[in-house]
């Protein structure tokens, strides 16, 4: 079973004026993830660590379509989403380190990033478990008459779970302002799509619930942003939920534990060489004279400084006192 990359055709669509910002966003995610991988090898980060390298265009393009009041529900591969939603790299890195300065005080770790200030509701590590919560967030907004959208990310593996089907049905039935964002990286951990889905055209599944559903090349950040804008416009216009499938590929193993034996090396290499979302955008920006070496160097330096500060912050952050172990099990004290 394989996930053969699509034939490469250079996008003809011009990159919009903020193209360099898109590049910067994707680079921030990639460098953050690379730093995490190094720190994992250095045993500073432990547990499960799932990296988003290769999939950066999905979070970058889709999150651009949201406003500050909108909500995000994500998966356990969510560092990039949190970073772009505005969780500070320091707080994110300290969370990876399990320190008190982490955005969740070290209670959640890599898989459970939450941030009330940016309406970032996880960090959910039960596949499809975040979808019902997203339904409820959107339901509350609707009942309270707020003009807000909830964006819910999940992998294609979630579409084999009952909670996916229950949630799509509910959201469609109640016409909720909910954007279902399927990050289809072609593998549910180590199982290829053809091994787990009887119908591999995933938009057909969503469409069967009367939810408008379409796909986009998830390696093309410009296309992802365009389609996410279109989806959000439809939702804000009262059209009910939308399902957007972003076809993407994970360049690294599923987690740091994964020896990655289920994919053909040539397949991985082909995706990396031909479909790297960062390389693709950089080439287009250069072709449109929107990017030069000096700009790229400046961006790289800014990100390096941000990450250096984040790691220093995490290193310096205190451990939570063990006396506080049972804090926050209950609101208003322990029981």
């Amino acid at each position: 079973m394989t996930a053969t990359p699509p034939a490469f055709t250079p996008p003809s669509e011009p990159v919009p004026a903020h193209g360099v910002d898109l590049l910067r966003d994707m680079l921030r995610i990639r460098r953050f993830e690379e730093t995490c991988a190094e720190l994992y090898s250095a045993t500073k980060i432990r547990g499960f660590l799932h990296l988003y390298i290769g999939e950066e265009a999905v979070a970058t393009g889709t999150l651009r379509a949201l406003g500050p009041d909108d909500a995000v529900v994500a998966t356990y591969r969510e560092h990039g989403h949190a970073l772009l939603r505005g969780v500070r790299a320091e707080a994110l890195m300290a969370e990876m380190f399990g320190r008190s300065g982490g955005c969740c005080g070290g209670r959640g770790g890599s898989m459970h990033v939450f941030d009330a200030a940016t309406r970032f509701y996880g960090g959910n590590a039960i596949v499809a478990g975040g979808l019902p919560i997203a339904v409820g967030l959107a339901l509350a907004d609707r009942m309270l008459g707020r003009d807000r959208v909830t964006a819910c990310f999940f992998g294609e593996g979630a579409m084999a779970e009952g909670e996916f089907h229950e949630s799509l049905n509910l959201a469609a039935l109640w016409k909720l302002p909910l954007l279902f964002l399927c990050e289809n990286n072609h593998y549910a951990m180590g199982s290829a799509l053809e091994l787990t889905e009887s119908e591999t055209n995933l938009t057909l599944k969503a469409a069967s619930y009367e939810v408008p559903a379409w796909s986009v090349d998830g390696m093309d950040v410009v296309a992802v942003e365009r389609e996410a804008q279109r989806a959000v416009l439809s939702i804000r216009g009262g059209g009910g939920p939308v399902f957007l499938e972003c076809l993407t590929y994970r360049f690294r193993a599923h987690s740091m534990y994964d020896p990655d034996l289920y994919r053909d090396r040539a397949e991985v290499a082909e995706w990396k060489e031909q479909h790297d979302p960062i390389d693709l955008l950089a080439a287009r920006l250069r072709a449109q004279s929107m990017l030069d070496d000096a700009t790229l160097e400046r961006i790289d330096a800014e990100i390096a400084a941000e990450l250096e500060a984040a790691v220093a912050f995490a290193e310096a952050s205190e451990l939570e006192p063990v006396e506080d172990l049972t804090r926050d099990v209950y609101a208003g004290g322990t029981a």
Partner: protein
Amino acid sequence: MSAEAAAGTLTYRDAVREAMCEAMRANERVFLMGEDVGRYGGGFGVSKGMLAEFGPERIRDTPLSESAFTGAGIGAALNGMRPIVEIMTVNFSLLALDQIMNNAATLRHMSGGQFEIPLVIRMCTGGGRQLAAQHSHSLEGWYAHIPGIKVLTPATIADARGMLAPALADPNPVLIFEHGSLYNMQGELPASPPAVDIERAAVMRAGDDVTLIAYGGMLGRTLEAAELLASHDVGAEVLDLRVLRPLDDAGFLRSVRRTHRAVVVDEGWRSGSLAAEVSARITEQAFYDLDAPVERVCGVEVPTPYAAHLEQAATPQAATIVAAALRTVGRDG
């Protein structure tokens, strides 16, 4: 509604409904959601008539999607609402266990205390109605195992009426287990029912010789047993746990230290039961006050059978409670 038909007299079912109506009139963010709560009036008729008063937005019929609508309750609670989720029976709640255990109970802690989840989940529990092995179990003891949620078991009309308001005011997820055999129970309440707490156990009958500890559907037959014990000249104190998590240790220890004997009555299966937990806490904290081993009267470890005589044999009865109590005072049960 029948509650208004006879002033002061009402059923347990009416009491739950009145509590919900009162909460919904007082706070527009409270709403009820679940299978058949609207047009049907609730699987056990609890929400009958509420659709007419509050409309379909707030008395929200759901598809048969326990996981999704329970999770939607969590999401709505995170986002400013005060949802009441009704799950038809405790056995069906297992389809929503992912949401209750992995999300409702954990989100606050995982997020470092950033979120509150003021969610109430009501469901019917227990046997006694010949509904066999997929509608009759008593799994509230399981739920009481989970840190992060609170577990209430109203056994009286007063608690059926009074527990919802403090549960809705609580910033934590609260599960309320309504025993199916109690819905038709009748009782009286003053026009303005007094507020109740959701923290403490309550002494339902005073006695000096043995403490009978029960909750939910078992309270009635435990009181019955106490009456029978009186005819044996044994004074039984009956304690209603009311709240299974967090347990009111002080409440039952106070009584046991005085009577020196305890019988724990639990409709749930014996192994790893709530009764086991209560018994262990008594032994840990009041061992030297005991004059006899703690007795447990629990459900027999069998999937609940359909046939009436078998179901009865599988469930604690007044006679088995009496026998256990007599053993604690050194007399043959």
